[in-house]
C-alpha cells in the first residue's frame, strides 16, 4: 500500500477559502479577502505540484479511500479519490490556471461591490472542479459536475441586476440540467448492471467485455448517454446554446469556467470513461461526428461576431469540438493534450480580452477598438502569442495539439479522412477569425471614444463590462472612458505566465512523450490496439498532413490580414485613383472585390444569416423559447383545473376513483 497523499486536502482547501470569504468577507478588507482567496487556491496548486513530485514513488492508479459512503445492498460508492496520470494532469491544469485567474481577478474585480462574494464563488468553483477531477467514482464526479454547474450559474449571474445576466445564468443552468439527465441515466444503468460506481471496480468489470460491434447494446447506450451529459457541460451541438450567453459573466469567469476548466469537464469525463467508449464503437462515432460538426459550425459562426468575447466563446465551442473529435477517434491522449494547451491559450485569450475591454472602458465591440497595441503592449504581446498558438503556428502549443488531433483523425482506425478534412477547414477558419480579431483590435487606428478632458487614468480595473453596474457598487461607470490604458501588474503577471505556457506548453509532446505518459490510462484492454495500427502509416503522410495544416493556418492569417488590415485603407486609395490610371494595383483591387463578393461575402452572409441567425438563434434558441412558451401555456390551462370550486374537486376525485376502479376490474378480469 502506497502512503496516503491526503488528496482530500486539495479540494477542501478552496472550500475553506470559500467558506471564510462567504461568511466573513463582507466585514473584511479587500486585501484580506484577496489574500484568503489566493492563499487557499494557491495552496491547492502547491499541493497538486507536491503530488506531482511524488508520482514516481507511487503505483498509479493511486486510490485513496476516505471513508465508505454508501453501501446500500450490493450497490456501493465510496468517498474515494482516484489519482492517475489523467487526473494528475487535470489537477495541475485546473489548480494552476485557476490560481492564475484568481490572481487576475483581484485586479479585475477590485472595485466591484461584490468582491468578496466573487472570490468566494471562485473558490467554491475550484472546490467542485477539483472534486470532479479527483473523484474516485462516478457519483462523486457527478456531485462535482453539478457543483461546477451551480457555481457557474452563480458566476454568470454575478451581475444579477442585469436582466440579461440573470437570464443567461438561468439558461446555462437549465440547458446543463438536460445534459445532466443523460449522465444520470447512464449512472443508473451502470448501477443496474454493475452494481458499483467506483472506477476501480467498475472498470475491472468492463475490461473483460468485448466491443459491441453491431451497434446497439448496453455500453453503447451508456456511452451515448454519457455523451449527452458531456455535450451539455462542454457546449456541443445541440446543447451549446448556453455558452455564448454565459459571456454575460465577468471576464475572469469566462476565462476560468467557460474556457479553461469547467467546459472541458465533458472531455475529461469521456476520456475517463474510455473503457466504455472503446467497447461501443457506434457511440464513439457519434462522439466524433458531434465533435467535428461542432468544431466547424461554431468556427463559422465565429467569423461573423463583432463582440470580442462572443468570438472567443464560439472559438471555445469549436476547440471543444476538436477535443471531442479526438476522443471520438479513440485518440484520448490527443484530446486531453489539446484540453491542456487550450486551457493555456484560451485562458490567456480571455484574460487578455478582459484586459482589452478594461483598457477601452468596457467596450466589447471590436469595430470600436483598433490600434491598441500602442496603448497596451503587454496585453498585445501576450495576446499575440495566444492567437498564434490557437491558430496552430509552430512551435506554439496549439500547433502540437491540433496537429496531433488532425493526424489521429486521419490515421486512427476509428478515424476517417472526412474528419481530417473538416478539421483542416476548421483550422483555416479558426486562424482567420482569430487574426481578424487580432487585427481589428490591435492594428489600424483607434476607433473608440476620444479621450475626454476629465478622464482619469487611474487604475480603475472595475467591472467595466457591466453595462448596468450594480447600484451598490462604487461609481465605476464613466471613469474608464478615455485613452486606453494598460492593466495593473497583478493582471499582467498571469497573462505573462500563461503566454509562456502557451508558447512552450506543446513541447512536452515532442517525441510522443505525452502520449506515453498517458498510455497506461488509456490502455483499452482490447487486443487491436490503436497505437499499433497507427504506427504502420506513419512517416511521410504525417509530414504532409502537418504541412497542410500549417498552410491552412498561414492562409487564414493572410486572408485576415488582407481583409482587415489592408482593406481599411481601401476607400482612400479608390478616392486617390478616381481620375487616374487603371493600374495593376487597381486590377488587384478588382480581384479583391471579386474575391470578396464571390467568397468572403457569401461566407459571411451565410454565417450570419443561416448559421447564426437562422440555426443558432431561430432554430435552437427558438426551439428553447417555443418549448418554454408552450410549457407556460399548458401550465396556465392545467392551472384552471384548480377552479376553486369544491364540487369540481370532488368531481376530479370521483372521476379518478371511477377510472381506477374501472381499470382494476378490467385488470382483475384479465
Amino acid at each position, binding site marked *: 500500500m502506497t502512503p496516503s497523499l491526503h488528496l482530500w486536502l486539495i479540494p477542501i482547501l478552496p472550500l475553506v477559502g470559500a467558506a471564510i470569504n462567504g461568511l466573513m468577507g463582507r466585514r473584511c478588507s479587500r486585501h484580506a479577502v484577496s489574500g484568503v482567496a489566493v492563499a487557499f487556491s494557491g495552496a491547492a496548486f502547491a499541493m497538486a505540484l507536491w503530488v506531482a513530485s511524488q508520482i514516481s514513488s507511487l503505483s498509479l492508479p493511486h486510490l485513496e479511500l476516505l471513508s465508505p459512503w454508501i453501501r446500500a445492498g450490493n450497490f456501493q460508492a465510496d468517498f474515494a479519490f482516484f489519482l492517475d496520470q489523467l487526473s494528475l494532469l487535470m489537477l495541475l491544469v485546473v489548480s494552476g490556471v485557476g490560481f492564475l485567474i484568481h490572481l487576475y481577478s483581484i485586479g479585475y474585480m477590485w472595485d466591484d461591490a461584490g468582491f468578496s462574494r466573487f472570490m468566494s464563488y471562485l473558490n467554491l468553483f475550484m472546490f467542485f472542479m477539483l472534486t470532479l477531477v479527483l473523484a474516485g467514482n462516478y457519483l462523486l464526479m457527478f456531485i462535482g459536475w453539478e457543483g461546477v454547474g451551480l457555481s457557474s450559474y452563480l458566476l454568470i449571474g454575478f451581475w444579477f441586476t442585469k436582466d440579461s445576466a440573470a437570464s443567461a445564468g438561468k439558461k446555462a443552468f437549465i440547458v446543463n440540467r438536460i445534459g445532466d439527465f443523460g449522465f444520470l441515466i447512464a449512472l443508473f444503468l451502470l448501477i443496474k448492471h454493475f452494481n458499483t460506481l467506483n472506477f476501480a471496480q467498475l472498470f475491472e468489470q468492463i475490461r473483460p467485455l468485448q466491443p459491441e460491434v453491431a451497434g446497439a447494446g448496453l455500453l453503447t447506450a451508456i456511452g451515448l448517454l454519457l455523451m449527452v451529459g458531456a455535450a451539455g457541460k462542454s457546449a456541443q451541438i445541440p446543447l451549446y446554446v448556453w455558452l455564448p450567453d454565459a459571456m454575460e459573466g465577468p471576464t475572469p469567469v469566462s476565462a476560468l469556467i467557460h474556457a479553461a476548466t469547467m467546459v472541458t469537464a465533458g472531455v475529461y469525463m469521456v476520456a475517463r470513461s474510455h473503457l466504455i467508449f472503446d467497447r461501443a464503437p457506434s457511440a464513439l462515432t457519434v462522439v466524433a461526428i458531434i465533435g467535428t460538426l461542432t468544431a466547424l459550425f461554431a468556427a463559422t459562426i465565429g467569423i461573423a461576431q463583432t463582440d470580442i468575447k462572443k468570438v472567443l466563446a464560439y472559438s471555445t465551442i469549436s476547440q471543444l469540438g476538436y477535443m471531442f473529435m479526438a476522443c471520438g477517434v479513440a485518440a484520448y491522449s490527443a484530446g486531453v493534450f489539446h484540453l491542456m494547451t487550450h486551457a493555456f491559450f484560451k485562458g490567456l485569450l480571455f484574460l487578455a480580452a478582459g484586459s482589452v475591454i478594461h483598457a477601452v472602458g468596457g467596450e466589447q465591440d471590436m469595430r470600436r477598438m483598433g490600434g491598441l497595441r500602442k496603448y497596451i503592449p503587454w496585453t498585445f504581446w501576450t495576446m499575440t502569442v495566444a492567437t498564434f498558438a490557437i491558430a496552430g503556428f509552430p512551435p506554439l502549443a496549439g500547433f502540437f495539439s491540433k496537429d496531433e488531433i488532425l493526424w489521429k483523425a486521419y490515421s486512427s482506425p476509428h478515424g476517417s479522412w472526412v474528419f481530417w478534412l473538416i478539421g483542416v477547414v476548421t483550422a483555416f477558419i479558426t486562424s482567420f477569425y482569430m487574426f481578424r480579431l487580432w487585427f481589428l483590435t490591435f492594428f489600424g487606428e483607434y476607433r473608440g471614444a476620444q479621450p475626454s478632458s476629465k478622464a482619469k487614468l487611474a487604475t480603475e480595473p472595475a467591472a467595466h463590462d457591466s453595462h448596468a453596474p450594480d447600484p451598490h457598487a462604487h461609481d465605476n461607470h464613466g471613469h474608464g472612458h478615455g485613452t486606453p490604458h494598460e492593466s495593473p501588474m497583478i493582471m499582467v503577471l498571469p497573462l505573462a505566465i500563461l503566454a509562456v505556457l502557451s508558447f512552450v506548453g506543446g513541447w512536452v509532446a515532442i517525441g510522443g512523450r505525452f502520449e506515453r505518459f498517458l498510455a497506461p490510462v488509456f490502455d483499452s484492454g482490447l487486443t487491436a490496439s490503436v497505437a499499433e495500427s497507427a504506427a504502420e502509416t506513419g512517416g511521410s503522410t504525417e509530414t504532409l498532413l502537418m504541412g497542410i495544416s500549417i498552410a491552412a493556418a498561414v492562409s487564414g492569417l493572410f486572408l485576415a490580414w488582407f481583409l482587415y488590415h489592408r482593406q481599411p485603407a481601401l476607400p482612400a486609395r479608390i478616392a486617390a485613383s478616381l481620375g487616374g490610371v487603371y493600374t495593376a494595383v487597381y486590377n488587384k483591387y478588382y480581384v479583391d472585390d471579386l474575391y470578396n463578393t464571390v467568397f468572403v461575402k457569401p461566407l459571411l452572409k451565410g454565417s450570419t444569416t443561416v448559421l447564426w441567425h437562422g440555426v443558432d438563434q431561430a432554430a435552437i434558441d427558438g426551439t428553447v423559447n417555443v418549448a418554454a412558451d408552450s410549457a407556460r401555456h399548458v401550465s396556465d390551462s392545467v392551472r384552471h383545473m384548480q377552479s376553486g370550486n369544491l*364540487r*369540481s374537486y370532488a*368531481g376530479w376525485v*370521483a*372521476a379518478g*376513483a*371511477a377510472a381506477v*376502479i*374501472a381499470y382494476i*376490474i378490467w385488470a382483475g378480469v384479465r
Partner: protein
Amino acid sequence: MNPVATPFFFYLLSTLAILGGVMVIVRRNAVHSAIALIVTLLSVAGLYLMLYAPFVAGVQIIVYAGGIMVLFLFVIMLVNIDRSMKERAFNKQWWIAIAAAVALGALFVSVFVKSKGLFPERGLPLAEESNTQQIGLYLYGNYMFAFEIASLLLLVAIIGAVVMAKKRI
C-alpha cells in the same frame, strides 16, 4: 332459518333506504333532506338486525339517528335557512355528476353481481342472543387499544369543534 330475515323485509327496508337516499339528494330544503336521511339510517338499522347485528343496529339508532342527525338539524336551524332554501339545489354540471356517480355505482354493482358466485351461502347464523356480549368482549379484549385510542379521537373532535365554533380565539 331465522324468521326475521325474510326477503319481504329486505325489499321493504332497502326500498325505504334507497328512497331516503334519493330524497336527500332531490329535496331543496335541508331539513327535508335531514329527515330523509334519518329514514335511510333507520332502515339500514333494520337491515343490521336482519344481519344478526343487534348491537350495531342499536348504536346506529342511538348515535346516528339520535345524536348525529339531531346535531345536523340543530346546525341547520342555527344558520340562516331561508337563504339557503331559495338557492337552486343543483349546480349546472349536474349531468356530469350524475354520469360519474352512476358509473361508480354501476361499477360497484357489477362487481357484486359478478362476485355472487364467490360468496356461497353459509347456513350458520351468528349467535344473535350473545351478540352484544361478544362485541363487548372484543372491544375490551383484542380491540382494547383501538377502543382507548378512539377516546383520543373524540377528545380531538371536541377540542376541534370548540375551537372552530368559538366566536373569537
